[in-house]
């Protein structure tokens, strides 16, 4: 196992693309949120002030959301790149010829994204602690770690994006198409899919005159769309501003629809999706001619 990690390290430590992506991540992630002091001088009600960004316990949510975007942009690409670059350099082929089995090669990639997720989570924890402690007067240990499993969720968030990128890399194999697919699926296709499904069903229900009833009962269809893979994974550390309407809707009797997934659903669901991504990638890789 260590040999495989050593191998990947030798391969990529001098790679300028990876160094740029990881470097930007390490540099920007800890400090980006501090820009909120200027950008968000006035925050939407009912938030009292932008201090919630930096104080415990909410800093875990806000920094987590910053991390969400950072991982999506910088680390997800790494997941794609470590696969597609070796296809275009034909070094994947050469690795197998030299003696690596397909399983070992695949495991090396999985280990790499595990390590990357650990590193990302470490950066999250350290930066959040640093920001939180310096902005929360009189913080005690109980308050500092009142974060509702934020750290575990962040690790899963990172692994979710990385394994999604890895899977696309293995399925598509060409870096341009892979990156395009990764971006458009997450940013456009899945949200569009959500709205299409909801739209279809609400249109049907309106025709049948049962729209208000369906919204009142625990209509599984409407909530089903929130379980689409990337939506679920993103809900591990969603936009904290959405927690407000979500809480509102949750306690509202007339509409039985939530904006965000219940957190334990997000945790278990993301584990399942990560395993599915990895399995799909593995099956496609083992069978292929390369």
């Amino acid at each position: 196992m260590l040999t495989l990690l050593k191998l990947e390290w030798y391969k990529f430590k001098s790679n300028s693309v990876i160094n740029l992506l990881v470097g930007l991540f390490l540099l920007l992630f800890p400090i980006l949120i501090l820009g909120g002091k200027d950008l968000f001088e006035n925050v939407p009600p009912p938030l009292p002030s932008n201090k919630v960004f930096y104080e415990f316990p909410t800093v875990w949510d806000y920094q987590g959301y910053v991390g969400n975007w950072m991982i999506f942009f910088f680390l997800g690409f790494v997941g794609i790149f470590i696969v597609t670059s070796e296809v275009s350099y034909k070094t994947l082929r050469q690795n197998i010829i030299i003696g690596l089995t397909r399983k070992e090669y695949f495991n090396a990639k999985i280990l790499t994204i595990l390590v990357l997720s650990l590193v990302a989570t470490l950066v999250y924890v350290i930066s959040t602690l640093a920001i939180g402690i310096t902005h929360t007067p009189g913080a005690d240990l109980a308050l500092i770690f009142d974060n509702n499993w934020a750290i575990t969720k962040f690790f899963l968030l990172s692994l979710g994006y990385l394994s999604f990128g890895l899977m696309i890399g293995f399925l598509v194999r060409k870096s341009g198409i892979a990156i395009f697919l990764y971006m458009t699926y997450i940013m456009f296709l899945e949200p569009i899919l959500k709205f299409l499904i909801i739209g279809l069903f609400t249109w049907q229900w309106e025709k049948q005159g049962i729209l208000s009833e369906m919204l009142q009962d625990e209509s599984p269809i409407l909530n089903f769309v929130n379980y689409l893979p990337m939506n679920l994974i993103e809900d591990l550390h969603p936009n904290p501003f959405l927690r407000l309407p979500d809480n509102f809707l949750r306690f509202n009797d007339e509409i039985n629809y939530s904006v965000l997934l219940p957190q334990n659903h997000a945790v278990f669901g993301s584990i399942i999706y990560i395993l599915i991504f990895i399995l799909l990638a593995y099956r496609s890789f083992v069978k292929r001619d390369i």
Partner: protein
Amino acid sequence: MSVLVTNNLTKKYGKLTALDNLNLNIEAGNVYGLLGPNGSGKTTTLGIILGILHQDGGGYEWFDGQFGPKARMKIGAILETPNFYPYLNAYENLRITATIKGISNPDYEKLLKLVDLYERRKSKFKTYSLGMKQRLAIAATLIGKPEVVIFDEPTNGLDPQGIAEVRNILKRIADSGKTVLMASHILDEVEKICSHVAIIKKGKLLATGPVGSILSSDPLVEVAAEDMEKLFDLMSGLDLVKNVHKIDKIFECTIDRNISAADINRIAHDHGIILTHIVGRNRRLEEEFLEITRDN
């Protein structure tokens, strides 16, 4: 000891049959040439036995199954082009090969000097000429002291000096006792370096055996006379004439190396045949090859 056995190896790409029930048997110490025109299936064969491609039918076994799926650790191979990380230098690329082979401290210096890349070892691979890339690939195949070395068209695209260098290295590897498998469409190369050869065309094995017997360069004599029938009977009946072949208005006879055109002339005269045409020449290798691969 049997190094590689393939058993009715078959590979199709849609309707195209790239390999058709190929049976090969390579023994330890052979310098085995896989000879065939472009598109005959050489690279496909190598791809399958090296785990890159999946066969559609049949199978293969390395080293009598001794090492199982890890057989490739005992093999050093170049398939088609030399594949390395362009942003890494020679030393770093070789280090990756060594890591996969499980070799902790290969003698980089010795290897690089063997292929004359020691001077440029710190330059990135992308700055290398084709000849240098090829030489690095050869160095990489030798890491871990493999028992079998496989080369796919090793001198492709090289200038004459590059070709000579590569052939030298190959010869030295062959002389050191390793088993060598070499795919090529250059007959001259195969004849000079190999001990055994398998000739493939359109995925089918046409001939296999020691180089001497398959690709002999026996001398030829072209003869013609007024009475062609009588000449034909005479030539066919001679022990020292291996083959008589009618081409246009002459007979092309493959004769034993120990006799010459002059001997044929004398024999014909002794039998009362006056030859109207006699030319002695060495058989061109291409003719051999083309004859074997001729559509029958």
